Structures are given as C-alpha cells and as structure tokens.
C-alpha cells in the first residue's frame, strides 16, 4: 500500500510546490518512513540518470544540414510562392492559340523572367537586411532609448507613420531596449529594438501595402520573419537562432492587434 502523500512528495522533490506545501511535506516525511525512502529513491535515480546517460548533443553534421535546409527553404518558399500558375495558359486556349510554337515558348520565357526573377530577389528582403545591418553600426541602433513601452510607443507617434505593438518581454528573455524610425518602402517605418542575449532583434513595422508579404527567409545568416497584424505588416530581423526569433514573433503575435496607423498622418 502506497502512502497517499507520495505524489505530493514527488512534486516537492521536483520543486513544484509552494513554500507552505513544502513545509507540510517536510513535516510529513519526518514521520513517514516510506516517503523518506521515496525521496531517497528519487534522488538516486536523478543522480544516476544525470551521471550515466550519455550527454547527447546535436552532431555538427546535423547542424550544417539544418542550416542548409533553412536556407533552401527560404529560396524554395519564394519560388513556390511566385511561380506563375500554368493553368492560365491551358484555361484560355483561344489566347494560347494566338501564339504558335516557339513564339509561345519565348513569350512565356520572357513573362517568367519579368515576373519571376525580380520577385525571387525580393527588394523588401534586401532592404530589411540592409536596414538591420545599418542599425548595428555605431550610434544607428536606437533613436529613443528606453525599456519602458510607455516611452517608446508615444515616440513613434511623432516620428513614424505607424504605431506598432510595443511590449517588454524581459522575463522571457527579450528585453525592450528602444525604438527607431527608418525609411522603408516609401514609408517612415517604426522599428522596435530588442536585445536577446548578445543578439539584437529589430522588429520593423509599416502600413499594409496590400502587395502581400515575402516568405520567411534567411540571408547571409540573418533570419527574417514576416507577419501581418491588423493593418500593419511586421518583420523581425536578427542573427539569433530561428527558434529564438520565433519566440519573440509568437509573443508579439499573442498581443493581438490593438494598433492602427497614426491618426496624425
């Protein structure tokens, strides 16, 4: 017969109880030999698992493979996204009929070149990477230095065309360090700057252009993640790991869409 307190003792061992419960459990184990033995077992098992199981780490080959896959993902995403649909040609046979043979092929090739190639190298992606790199130059990163969202957010109202979500996520490891105005896609974009460990994360935002966002991408080791919220478009850029960058993106997305364009523009 097992002591009915055993689950609480386990929770105590796993540091899952508050101080009041902890005191309860400690008092209980003084009188209950079974639970004392349980605590001993739990400790021995933990020590054994820590000591005797191999400390596996992701092999270098896998890391390299993942980096390649993520880079490839960025490229194939954009080609998937922007390939001109074939059905347009087959669904309109009368239109196709006006071109014959090689002429049609040449026309399609030109069309593909005009439409596809420039999109593959999306200028917005390059602009954002450029803006991110510029921001890392001395004295370019921050216009308004503050860890307080109530300081950063009103500052945007006078200096940019948009009013993005601003929040500090210090407990989650993303510290708000300030804001900056930047010129992007013919607009005064707002940039919220976060620090994550040694990495700087720039979160750009601009008014929805209705042109659709590029796919998430990796350029020269910098990751870009795009999303839309309300009538603003956002892009987070950083050299931090993709999963870490996603963490901030998800936190920002979780704040909802309380914001609109600045009314004073």
């Amino acid at each position, binding site marked *: 017969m097992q002591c009915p307190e*055993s*689950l609480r003792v*386990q*929770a105590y061992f*796993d540091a*899952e109880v508050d101080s009041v419960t902890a005191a309860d459990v400690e008092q209980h184990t003084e009188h209950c030999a079974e639970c004392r033995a349980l605590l001993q*077992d*739990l*400790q*021995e*098992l*933990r*020590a*054994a*698992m*820590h*000591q*005797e*199981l*191999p400390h*596996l*780490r*992701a*092999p270098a080959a*896998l*890391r390299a*493979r*993942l980096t390649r*896959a*993520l880079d490839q*993902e960025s490229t194939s*995403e954009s080609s998937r996204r922007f390939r001109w649909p074939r059905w347009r040609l087959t669904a309109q046979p009368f239109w196709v009929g006006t071109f014959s043979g090689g002429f049609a092929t040449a026309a399609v090739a030109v069309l593909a070149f005009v439409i596809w190639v420039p999109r593959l190298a999306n200028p917005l992606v390059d602009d954002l990477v450029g803006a991110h790199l510029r921001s890392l130059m001395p004295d370019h990163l921050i216009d308004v230095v503050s860890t307080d969202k109530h300081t950063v957010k009103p500052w945007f109202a006078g200096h940019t065309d948009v009013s993005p979500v601003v929040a500090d*996520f210090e407990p*989650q490891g993303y510290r708000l360090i300030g804001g900056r105005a930047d010129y992007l896609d013919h607009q005064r974009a707002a940039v919220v700057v976060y620090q994550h460990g040694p990495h700087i994360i720039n979160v750009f935002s601009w008014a929805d252009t209705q042109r659709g966002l590029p796919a*998430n991408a990796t350029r020269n080791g910098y990751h870009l*993640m795009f*999303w839309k919220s309300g009538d603003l478009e956002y892009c987070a850029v950083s050299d931090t*790991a*993709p*999963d*870490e960058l*996603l*963490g901030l*993106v*998800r*936190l920002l997305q*979780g704040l909802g869409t309380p914001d609109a364009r600045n009314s004073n523009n």
Partner: protein
Amino acid sequence: MPHLDAAYRFARWLARSPDDADDLVQEALLRAFRGFDALRGSDVKAWLLTIVRNCHFTALKQEQRRGLVPLPEEHDAQDGHALIASTPDPESASIQRDEQRTLESLIAGLPDDHREVLILREIEDMDYRDIAAVTNVPLGTVMSRLARARSALKKQWLRHNDGVPRAVP
C-alpha cells in the same frame, strides 16, 4: 540554436535510429520555421519539443499505414541497444558504458508514455506544466505517469544490480 540539442535528444528517444532522429529534427525545425504550429504559452523549448513529438507521431502513423513497421512496443527492447550501439563514447570507461547500457535500455523498455515524461523531467529539466503541454495530457496525468515511470525504473534497476542498492554520491 539553443534548443536544438534538446530537440535532438528528445528525437533520439522517440525515433528508432539516429538517422530517423536527424530527419525528425529537420522536419520539426522546418515546421517551426514555417510557423504552422502556434506557440502555446511562452516557452520556446516546450513548443519545439511539442512539434518534434507531433512530427514523430505523424511519421509513425504514415509508416504503420504503409505496413512498414509493426506496433512500436515490439521495438522497445531493441531501441535501447540501437541507441547505444550507434553512439560509441570512446572517452568513457567500459564499466560506465555497461551501466549506461543498463540504465538506458531499462528506460528504453518503459512504456512510451511513461518514458517521455521521465525524459522531459530528468533530462530536459522541464516543469510539470511544460511537460503537460508537450505530451498533451493533464497535469495530474503527468504526475502519475512520472511516479509510475520512476518507481518501475527503480525496481528494475535494483533487480539488475542483484538487489544491492547502489550508493550514489
């Protein structure tokens, strides 16, 4: 990528071979990168491990449908050996390897749903709430599975050591 090691370790316990684990991690990371899976709560590690686990079950279902693998339980005993055989650790003494093998194969022999909570708790040092999120079960279930996994492992381990309790410094 700070959580990559955790994803890889977890994948190694889930998958049947190191190659499968590599594929699993890649699939999960790409899924995470594409943003298909919403982040629940704020813990990135728990979120990534959830995706690893989901990818594992998706792959397993596909293989079972194609009749490539029998039910996973029949593989459990072999899993542990495969895991060790493929990860030679030249630095450790042979005695330590034997102990690893014992403990590792015992853990590998636990039922899947017990093993995963034990691994997430002891190896990945996750709290009950995050473990519940990853394994998609209520908190109470996490606690009872953890208790059963630990008690079973302790018993089997003692049996392996000829009933002599091991003193752990």
